[in-house]
């Protein structure tokens, strides 16, 4: 148990979790109170594995990317030997940031302030007038600082600012196998992050974007105009959203442990691929998953999934495209969002063109969907100004169902329960899994 008192007024908890009645409410104070964000920094962002970047963003030795992760300025680079390195983007001498460009290639990282120079393994290799320092001066102690833990899973690199954290694979738990459903689609070629980043923001609390990123319930009302575009392109949406005819679940919501969760479904979104060579190539590729991984897994790979890696990494595959999204709170009501497109490497150019087209028509600051999500979350945040009179948000959909689907909210509740565990020491519990 930690000392954080999440009570509101007189002993009202932040989360009401009544399993029997199917009642789950979150107090909106969690989205507006600066004290909550300050505690989240220490209890969540300083303890959990946070996404930095993907292997393929560092194609060559000495490629670098400057990133902000968990509030820290980081350098994500590849050293002479090809090993990925993550450093704090600050000179050990007096603090100036070393990388002042977002990306580039540099054999040496030189601080312009006093010209201290480091190699891409973080070693201090040169500085002006070293003789003026005393005998205690030790170059080996003055290399670049690194987060205490840096680990990768299948090309996705993470840091942890807690030296005592469990290893990444243990942390990911059942979510690792869901990441495989993305990565295995690359077959022998693998996946890659495409150039061109969606760097945007929202005037909304970061946890609203967690909820929104795997919320099937909002899709029809919020994204009607996207759906109408898809329908106009010749796709019959009633097959996906109309009556279910074969009796098997068409979508699901899943708790994956440690606060990770997902929604999945059997059929994707997007404009239909035009008849012809590209569509045939896509069908051949998708059919080949069964030979490589078996029918059951292939069906899951060819379905859709919106995955949250607690606390702030989202991986989405809607069949037509894949997105990697992460976000950084700057204030209770403001966050920076960064998103990249994930694609099969060495893809046929026509398939790649269609993938790009489908991605953009839905996702990102100029898509036909994301701007309306931004509007929704910003409207929620504005509404929270009335949280004294209206303190609670309801996240109880599907709580009493044996098989929650993607329009239910079990995936959000598992996020909030883990949040409450880290923030307040409330023991983690699950609706549909043991321990």
């Amino acid at each position, binding site marked *: 148990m930690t000392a954080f008192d999440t009570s509101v007024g007189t002993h009202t908890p932040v989360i009401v979790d009544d399993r029997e009645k199917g009642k789950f409410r979150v107090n909106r104070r969690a989205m507006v109170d600066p004290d909550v964000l300050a505690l989240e920094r220490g209890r969540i962002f300083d303890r959990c594995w946070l996404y930095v970047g993907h292997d393929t963003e560092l194609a060559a030795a000495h490629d670098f990317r400057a990133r902000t992760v968990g509030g820290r300025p980081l350098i994500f680079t590849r050293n002479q030997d090809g090993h990925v390195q993550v450093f704090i983007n600050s000179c050990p001498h007096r603090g100036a940031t070393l990388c002042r460009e977002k990306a580039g290639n540099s054999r040496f990282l030189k601080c312009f302030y006093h010209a201290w120079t480091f190699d891409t393994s973080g070693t201090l290799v040169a500085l002006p007038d070293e003789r003026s320092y005393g005998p205690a001066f030790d170059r080996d102690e003055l290399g670049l600082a690194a987060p205490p833990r840096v680990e990768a899973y299948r090309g996705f690199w993470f840091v942890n600012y807690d030296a005592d954290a469990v290893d990444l694979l243990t942390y990911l738990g059942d979510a690792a196998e869901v990441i495989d459903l993305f990565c295995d689609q690359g077959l022998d070629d693998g996946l890659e992050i495409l150039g061109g*980043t969606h760097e*945007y923001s929202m005037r909304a609390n970061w946890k609203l974007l967690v909820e929104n990123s795997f919320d099937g319930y909002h899709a029809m009302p919020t994204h009607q*105009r996207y759906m*109408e575009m898809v329908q106009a392109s010749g796709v019959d949406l009633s097959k996906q959203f109309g009556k279910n005819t074969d009796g098997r679940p068409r979508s699901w919501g899943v708790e994956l442990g440690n606060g990770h969760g997902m929604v999945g479904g059997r059929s994707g979104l997007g404009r239909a691929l035009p008849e012809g060579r590209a569509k045939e190539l896509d069908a051949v590729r998708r059919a080949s998953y069964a030979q490589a991984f078996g029918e059951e897994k292939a069906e899951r790979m060819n379905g859709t999934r919106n995955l949250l890696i607690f606390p702030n990494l989202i991986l989405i595959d809607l069949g037509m495209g894949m997105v990697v999204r992460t976000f950084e709170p700057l204030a209770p009501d403001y966050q920076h969002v960064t998103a990249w497109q994930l694609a099969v490497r060495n893809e046929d150019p026509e398939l790649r063109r269609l993938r790009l087209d489908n991605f*953009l*028509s839905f996702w990102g600051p100029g898509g036909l969907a994301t701007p309306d999500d931004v509007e929704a979350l910003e409207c929620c945040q504005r509404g929270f100004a009335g949280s004294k009179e209206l303190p609670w948000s309801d996240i109880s959909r599907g709580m009493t169902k044996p098989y929650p689907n993607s329009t239910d909210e079990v995936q959000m509740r598992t996020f909030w329960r883990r949040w409450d565990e880290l923030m307040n020491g409330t023991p983690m519990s699950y609706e549909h899994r043991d321990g």
Partner: protein
Amino acid sequence: MDRYALRFEVEDFLYREADLLDAWDLLAWLELFAQDCHYSVPPTDLPDADPLQHTFLIHDDRFLLTQRVNSLLTKTAHAEWPHSRTRRLVSNVRASEEDGQVSVSANFAVYRMRYEHVDTYVGTYRHEMIRAEHGQLLFVHRKAVLDLDALRPQAKVSIIL
């Protein structure tokens, strides 16, 4: 054509276009495009990006552009309903013409006002145009390249830039 006359013609076109957009007269604006056309906004971190390789912010073909325009005129475009107020300033216009292909560059500042916030979009246009039957200019590729290094705090490109 005399290059001053061409510049005057293009400036006049861009000013009229800006008026149509600021007035949300998007159906009239759509008529400024050739049948086979694109409207694109490259990503902020890769202004020279290639739409066949990289993730853009917007790369609409005729179908998507029509969908975008039609939806922006309905209440289903939540991010723009009620419509933002916008005001655009277009300057530093340059144009050249060769064999009926007109290349246009111009600078823009687009202000978007909504919920008492002012979002500013600064950048440059790089348009490719052709001449229709009666000589009037039509967009083949209308491209708005942002100078912003991220959409922060603008968050979105829900208006036409």
